[in-house]
C-alpha cells in the first residue's frame, strides 16, 4: 500500500468509520441535512445550543469512510465549545484539508488525522460535508446543504 493511502486511511479514521461516535439523532434542538450529489453521501447533523455553547451534537447517515470518520471526529471536537470557537475551528479545518499537500499541518488535535485528504483533492468534499452541514445547523438554515 502506498504512503498516501496509509496516511488517508490511518487507524483513527478506520476506527471512527467502524464505530462512529455520537451516531444518533437528538430529540430536540436544531438539525441540518448534508448531501453530496457526486457520490450520494447523505448525513444529518443534530445540534443542541444553550447559551451560545454547543451542549450536544449527533449525526446519522451513510457515506464513505472519510465522510463518516470526519463527521464522527467533528462531533467529538465541537461538543462543549462556544459557537464562536466552533465556527473558528471549522475555518481552520477547512484550511487544513485544502492546503497544498506539503504545507505544515496546523495543530488541530485528532482532526489532524484528516490532513491525508490533501493528497486526494476529489475526497476533500467527503471530509468537509459534515462540517458544512454543522454550519448550516448553527445558522438554523432549514435546507439541504449540498457540496456541489
Amino acid at each position, binding site marked *: 500500500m502506498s504512503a498516501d*493511502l496509509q496516511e488517508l486511511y490511518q487507524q483513527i479514521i478506520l476506527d471512527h468509520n467502524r464505530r462512529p461516535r455520537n451516531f444518533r439523532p437528538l430529540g430536540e434542538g436544531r438539525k441540518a441535512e448534508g448531501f453530496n450529489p457526486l457520490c450520494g453521501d447523505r448525513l444529518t447533523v443534530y445540534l443542541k445550543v444553550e447559551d451560545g455553547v454547543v451542549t450536544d451534537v449527533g449525526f446519522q447517515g451513510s457515506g464513505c469512510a472519510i465522510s463518516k470518520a470526519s463527521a464522527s471526529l467533528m462531533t467529538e471536537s465541537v461538543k462543549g465549545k462556544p459557537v464562536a470557537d466552533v465556527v473558528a475551528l471549522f475555518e481552520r479545518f477547512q484550511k487544513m484539508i485544502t492546503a497544498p499537500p506539503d504545507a505544515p499541518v496546523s495543530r488541530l488535535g485528532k482532526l489532524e488525522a484528516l490532513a491525508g485528504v490533501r493528497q486526494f483533492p476529489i*475526497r476533500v468534499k467527503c471530509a468537509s460535508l459534515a462540517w458544512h452541514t454543522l454550519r448550516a445547523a448553527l445558522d438554523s438554515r432549514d435546507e439541504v446543504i449540498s457540496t456541489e
Partner: protein
Amino acid sequence: MRRDMTISIASSMPALDVDRLRDDFPILKRRVHGKPLVYLDNAATTQKPHAVIDRLTRYYREENANIHRGVHALSVEATVAYDAARDRIRQFLNAAEAREVIFVRGATEAINLVAATYGRTCVRTGDEILVSEMEHHSNIVPWQMLCEATGATLQVVPITDTGELRLDEFERLLSPRTRIVAMTHVSNALGTITPIETLVRMAHAQGAVVLVDGAQAVAHMPVDVQAIDCDFYVFSGHKIFGPTGIGVLYGRSALLDAMPPYQGGGDMIRSVTFEGTSYNEVPYKFEAGTPNIAGAIGLAEALSYVSEVGLTRIAAYERDLLSYGTEALSAIPGLRLTGTAAHKAGILSFVIDDIHPHDIGTILDQDGVAIRAGHHCCQPLMARLGVPATARASLAMYNTREEIDALVKALRTARAVFA
C-alpha cells in the same frame, strides 16, 4: 435460435487480437501513480484509437471550414466529409436512409430532442410514458419534464432482484394510453441486456412509439435499427471510441418529417422573414447552428474502426472476459455482484461488506485501476437495490484477463486496508 447463430458465427471467425488492438490506443501505455493504467471505466467513456485522434487532427489541419455555406474548396470538402459521416452512421445502424441520422451532442440531447419535439406535439393529458426502473437519469428526467408540461404520467417497469426487466409487468403496464416507451438497450449500472425486439413488438401492438437508449450497447454488440424495429435509437460517440460532444439520434423518417424543429437558428431554415420562417427538411431541421463537424467526422472514423474489428467478434471476446471477471470477483469474500442477469454486457457492478464504493475507488486508483464509484446516474435503481452506491468495473474490447487480475489484486488490498 438467433443467439446460437451468433455464437457459431463468432466461433468460426478468428479471435480478437487484443495485443494488436491495444497498440492502437496510445493512452493505454500510460502509467498512473507509477503503475500501468488499467482502464475499467468504459461505461463512463471509452479511450480513443490513433485512427480517431489522427482524423480529428487532419480535419483541423487540412479541411476545417464551415459546412453548407461557402462555395470555396474547403467548405465543399468539409461538407462532403460531414455528409459522408452521416452515411457512415446510417450504415453502422443499418438505417434505411441517411436523413434518419441526426447529429446531436450525445444520447442525453437526443432524448431531450425527442421529448421536446415528438413529445410536446403527440403527448396529451392522460397519456402514459413507460420507462424501466434501471434507466439512466437521462432517460428519466426529460420524460418527467414532458409529463409535467403535458399532464401525462410516467409509468415505471420494475426489475427483478438479478436486474432483469419484469416482462409480465411491462405487459401489464402497456396500454392504449401508452404513448412512448423509453427503454435502455443495455443498463449502464447493471449490464443487463434488455429483450429489446420483444419490447418493441409488444409496444407497437399497443400503438406506442419506442425510443431505445443505446449508449451502452453500440460498442459491444451489432445494432440493426431495422431489425429492432424501434422508432428512435440514441447513442453517444464518446462511448464508442469517438470524440465527446457528438452523438446520434436515429429516427424513423415518417416521424421525423412530422416533428417540429428542436432549436431555431441557421441551417435549420429554408427561408426567413420577420413575418415568418419555413423550415429546412430532415435532418437539417434538427441541426440548428454550426454543428460539431470534427466530432461527426471523428465519430464516423471510430465506427469504421469498430466495424473493422467486428462487433460480433467484440461481443464474443467481451462475453468471455465478463465470465472470467464474474468468476474472479465472486471469489472475493464479502463481495456481492449487483446485476446478474442472464443476458449481460461487460459490466461488473458490486459492493463489498463494510467498504464504501468511494473508498474502493480511491484505493484501486492508487494501483492504477480506474473504476467508477457512485450511483451511476441511476438513483432510482440504487434505491431499488437498497444501496447508496456501487463500485463498477466496465469492460471494452481492449481489456484483458491480466487487467481483471489487477482489479482483483487491488480489491484484495482494499479489503486488507479495511480488515
